[in-house]
């Protein structure tokens, strides 16, 4: 079942309509890769439930980053020192960046960001429950970061070994950046712990508020979590909820001592037999209620997110309209610019006009996700949360080939980003993003992929302008190259004593 037809887009799933015809090689190859603890790439064959499960988890991880900006963002204007203000802006900015990495990762599975955001706004997909708790004092800003970012790091470090390669790559980047979040939270609290009595009271009260929401981030106990078992088998998740929660508690106890705070659990004590701490688990009924929408801030967080999206619509439309006008005015030799923005390298041809301005074409791909569970092990089952049935419409491979290489964010096409890390090395693919035009794509790429000094040069190229080889052709294309050992110097035996060969 080799694909025939035009070359496919980079990273966009291109499994063909013949998928329903049993392809013996696909499932067997997939199982073999999983068994060997190897990575699955976007264009590899994968079972539909694996793909759906991944989309659910990655989408909810992405939503958590975006929604997670809110509880802290409203403290930026009140930060009590200019340095703390700068740190907090950088942290919230990272969360937007992480959301973008993750939406881009989800898009490699054939869903558009637009459809995922629709699902979030409609309440069909969830995000981590702690985001629905209020951040009441400056100390809460620190406690939230110390505890929930700490929990996120424990979760995500484990997830870096996930079987889906683009997700693993995004997580490596995220973990690197997230440890800054965790540490600045601790640092903020540490300053309070050395401060005035009022500051220390504020600190203790905030830790009291955030301890259990952080524990709940690891989701329900393993025996109650349906997704957990399946995700572990596919190596999407690499450790169970209970194990990670325990790891987190053990990590926090000495840190709490350094801060001089009491963790709000009278049952918390070292158990020499188990070699770890006993503790009171979070209230899973409360977790269930919060995930289902009845936490203290669910309504306002979601309303804020929807309002922002609606208020931004005219801006996104304007940028798309301007890009279309520019394309229409463009002379043929300027087409290259529309299709890719490079430093010293011509881009491909094609008209540079957004290939598909009808968002409807992307479809309601997000409907396929079931709304349960969250990115990193949240209440992850099909029972505790509202699930829309429309989401379970049969998935056909035909849909998966939908023309989503272009559109997504309000008609802004998708671009692939290549970064030169330093003078003397190649540009390397870093990820993707949405932008109305090449200039915007370059600037977004700079902000998104080089904000920690990771680059000296950037290329962006329209995703639908990249031709990629199909995994089905892998054997034909690459096996013959493995069959000619005489191309390598090691093929030839060198007589003893002969040098410089």
């Amino acid at each position: 079942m080799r694909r025939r037809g035009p070359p496919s887009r980079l990273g966009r799933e291109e499994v063909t309509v013949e998928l329903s015809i049993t392809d013996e090689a696909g499932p067997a190859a997939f199982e073999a890769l999983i068994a060997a603890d190897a990575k699955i790439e976007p264009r590899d064959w994968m079972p539909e439930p694996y793909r759906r499960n991944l989309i659910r988890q990655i989408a909810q991880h992405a939503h958590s980053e975006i929604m997670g900006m809110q509880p802290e963002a409203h403290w930026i204007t009140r930060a009590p020192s200019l340095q703390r203000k700068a740190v907090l802006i950088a942290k919230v900015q990272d969360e937007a960046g992480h959301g973008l990495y993750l939406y881009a990762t989800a898009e490699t599975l054939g869903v558009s960001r637009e459809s995922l955001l629709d699902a979030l706004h409609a309440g069909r997909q969830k995000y981590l429950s702690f985001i629905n708790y209020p951040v009441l004092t400056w100390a809460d800003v620190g406690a939230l970061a110390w505890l929930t970012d700490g929990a996120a790091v424990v979760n995500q470090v484990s997830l870096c070994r996930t079987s889906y390669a683009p997700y693993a790559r995004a997580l490596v980047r995220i973990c690197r950046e997230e440890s800054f979040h965790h540490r600045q939270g601790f640092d903020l609290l540490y300053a309070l712990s050395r401060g005035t009595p009022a500051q220390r009271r504020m600190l203790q009260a905030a830790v009291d508020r955030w301890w259990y929401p952080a524990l709940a981030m690891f989701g329900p106990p393993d025996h109650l979590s349906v997704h957990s078992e399946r995700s572990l088998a596919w190596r999407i998740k690499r450790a169970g909820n209970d194990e990670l929660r325990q790891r987190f508690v053990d990590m926090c106890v000495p840190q709490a001592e350094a801060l001089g705070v009491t963790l709000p659990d009278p049952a918390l004590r070292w158990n020499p037999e188990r070699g770890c701490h006993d503790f009171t688990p979070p209230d899973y009924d409360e977790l269930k209620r919060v995930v289902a929408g009845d936490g203290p801030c669910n309504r306002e967080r979601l309303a804020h997110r929807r309002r922002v999206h609606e208020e931004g619509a005219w801006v996104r439309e304007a940028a798309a309209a301007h890009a279309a006008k520019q394309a229409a005015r463009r002379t043929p030799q300027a087409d290259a610019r529309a299709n890719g923005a490079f430093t010293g390298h011509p881009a491909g041809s094609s008209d540079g006009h957004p290939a598909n301005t009808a968002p409807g074409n992307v479809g309601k791909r997000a409907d396929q996700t079931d709304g349960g569970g969250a990115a990193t092990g949240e209440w992850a089952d099909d029972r505790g949360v509202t699930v829309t049935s429309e989401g379970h419409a049969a998935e056909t491979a035909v849909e998966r080939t939908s023309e989503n290489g272009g559109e997504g964010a309000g008609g802004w096409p998708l671009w692939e980003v290549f970064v030169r890390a330093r003078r003397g090395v190649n540009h390397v693919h870093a990820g993707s993003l949405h932008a109305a035009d090449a200039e915007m794509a370059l600037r977004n790429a700079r902000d998104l992929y080089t904000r920690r000094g990771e680059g000296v040069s950037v290329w962006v190229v329209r995703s639908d302008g990249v031709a990629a080889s199909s995994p089905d052709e892998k054997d034909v294309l690459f096996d013959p190259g493995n069959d000619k050992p005489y191309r390598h110097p090691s093929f030839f035996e060198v007589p003893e004593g002969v040098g410089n060969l």
Partner: protein
Amino acid sequence: MTSTGFEQALALGDDALIAAQRMAEWCARAPEIEEDVALANIALDLLGQARALLSYAGELEGLGRGEDELAYLRDEHEFRNVQLVELPNGDFAVTMAKLLFFAVHQQVLYAELAGGDGPLAAIAAKAVKETAYHASHATLWTVRLGDGTAESHRRMQQAIEHVWPYTHELFEGSDRRGAWLARVEPVLADATLTRPQDGWAPTGGRRGVHTEAFGPLLAEMQYVHRAHPGARW
């Protein structure tokens, strides 16, 4: 250094600080997530400039006031920023109009200061690259919105009309308006916008006279710091 040096560093520092504070209000509110990242970058640049300038002003003053004392423990009438930067954000078009006019002004000014010597020249040399980026970001958006849809054109035209009067204050006692106009007018033309007429020219920021919107901005910015006198953060 003379008190003029202190006044100058304070005025530029206050401009950057209040512009950063307003820009940071966009966090988690931008029209697209990519733009959230971009606006946060601009806010961080401005905040960095403010910290350097206020620290330098504090040194010149020699009374032991650092960046935080200057930012958090002065009242409205002691701030020397122009009124333009304290104007409420409005919609995205107003914010881009403010950014365009302010960043181009900063760019012209910092390029000039970077040619001098001393600490201010060093601060300006770093800032001039940042402001060039801000000006370019605002330019691209002004053109996209001006030459986008009918709705965005209307909003962008309204935005520049709204902000234009406040630009006069940027050039009080300087001859940089010509250089500023030479950069701003072509952007407005590219954006198919009509350059607003000069006329009403509100002023007072440099003397500590501000708009009504400034008090609430400071109240929000300063209250945690002021509620804990002498505390360290």
